[in-house]
């Protein structure tokens, strides 16, 4: 490397296919079957076949070598693969790495796929790896980790219980516009406030679903993308950062590594947060949305609670956030990162139905892994943004 070449080439790769399978409850289906079902739909969406796929990224809670398991199941022989395992944001990191691999000529068509039967199997053991110096306190993870972050944010910035509730209510209102969403019955702020806490200050309404489901997306070079079935959604920039694994080792519980990944991704994409039309952040818990809106620069640190108040991120609000209903109300099969990317793609393609955001050209998909640990920001744009 000469150091002169930019690390990423803005818009040189694109998302060209997306698919879901078995969202919600899919008893009897294995994680790989769900992954394969989503892959079939994503390829059909793109107008490609498995014969075109020469790169694969995958992750599950159930496979130690997920790309080997998935590629063998699908019967493909990739020449490039990546199973970066950093929690729910793995798939956003894989978009960054797939873009670089395609740019470098290591492969041309990359499948990024996920499958989980977390709900029907009740097996989320792959998520739970409590270290030796913490296990004896029996923290319910990840719930306690996010409760501790929410408590600290309320303490430092005066964020209120009602402001956390606004996040859950906004997610529910978006979910009511999404026919695939799991939770579509009305939810009011007062319902959240009246609910008992599960780990103070969080109630069950502040916590994501546990679902079954598979998801997949297909990426290729911008050149090849132009000949495919769907309008290409270009990867304008992406960046990742991580500062800790366990919540006890997080340098500041109110400030995530998204403060680093966000600005780096925006710089590559040559956009500002104020340019963004649609925001998809990984809302494992209601506090996440507040933290990431702050850390990505949509509002100042400490003002996330006020920012989301009065329906500001609900349909018709000042900023369209988590338009699928998010992990809180749409679906959450153990990891949600791929779903952030797929919803951002749907919005930029103008295929989001009743929840379509007008004139959506620029979107951010932001993934969170672990206990606010790994942060990965991907900026996506329509052809108009190139």
């Amino acid at each position: 490397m000469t150091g002169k070449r930019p690390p990423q080439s803005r818009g040189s790769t694109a998302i060209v296919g997306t698919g879901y399978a078995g969202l919600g409850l899919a008893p009897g289906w294995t994680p790989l079957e769900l992954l394969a079902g989503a892959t079939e739909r994503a390829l059909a969406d793109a107008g490609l076949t498995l014969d075109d796929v020469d790169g694969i990224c995958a992750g599950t809670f159930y496979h130690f070598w997920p790309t080997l398991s998935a590629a063998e199941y699908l019967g493909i022989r990739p020449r490039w693969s990546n199973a970066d395992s950093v929690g729910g944001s793995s798939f956003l990191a894989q978009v960054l790495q797939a873009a670089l691999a395609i740019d470098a000529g290591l492969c041309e068509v990359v499948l990024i796929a996920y499958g989980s039967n977390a709900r029907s199997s009740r097996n989320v053991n792959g998520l739970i790896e409590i270290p030796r110096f913490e296990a004896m306190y029996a923290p319910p993870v990840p719930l306690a980790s996010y409760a501790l972050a929410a408590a600290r944010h309320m303490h430092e910035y005066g964020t209120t219980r009602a402001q956390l509730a606004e996040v859950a209510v906004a997610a529910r209102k978006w979910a009511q516009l999404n026919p695939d969403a799991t939770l579509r019955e009305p939810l009011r702020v007062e319902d959240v406030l009246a609910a008992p806490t599960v780990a103070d200050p969080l109630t069950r309404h502040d916590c994501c679903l546990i679902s079954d489901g598979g998801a997949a997306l297909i990426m290729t070079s911008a050149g090849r993308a132009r000949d495919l079935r769907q309008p290409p959604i270009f990867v304008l920039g992406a960046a990742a950062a991580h500062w800790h694994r366990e919540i006890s080792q997080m340098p500041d519980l109110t400030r995530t590594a998204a403060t680093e990944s966000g600005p780096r991704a925006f710089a590559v994409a040559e956009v500002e947060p104020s340019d963004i039309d649609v925001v998809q952040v990984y809302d494992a818990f209601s506090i996440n949305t507040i933290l990431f809106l702050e850390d990505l620069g949509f509002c100042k640190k400490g003002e996330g609670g006020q920012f989301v108040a009065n329906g500001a991120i609900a349909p018709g609000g000042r900023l369209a956030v988590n338009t699928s209903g998010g992990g809180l109300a749409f679906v959450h099969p153990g990891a949600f990162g791929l779903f952030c990317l797929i919803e951002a793609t749907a919005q930029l393609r103008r295929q989001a139905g009743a929840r379509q955001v007008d004139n959506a050209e620029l979107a951010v998909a932001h993934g969170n892994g672990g206990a606010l640990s790994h942060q990965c920001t991907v900026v996506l744009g329509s052809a108009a943004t190139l």
Partner: protein
Amino acid sequence: MLQRSRKSGIYLFYPRSFARGVAGEDLEWVEASGKGVVYSATVVRRKSEQGGNYNISIVQLAEGPRMLTRVLGVEPEAVRIDMPVLARVERPSWADSAEPVIMFYPAHRS
């Protein structure tokens, strides 16, 4: 006991063999003050037949590092951020384990 870097004076928790800012041969074990303050706290809600509600806290030790722990001696709801606490090494009442662990108690009753 806590690990400390002789060179930089930095304390480590959890114990490590090598990390940024310290070299392996640079680390020594020193007596910890046992003092800390609650950095954040939650009440984990459990039915009484499952053992009842309990506290999970992150305590910032006077020496600098933070650790996950439980604050005992008061109702879980009474544990507050910034509350000064003192460490005790005890066998946990909630586990069958014979291993004693580090717990914290409020430093003064108010």
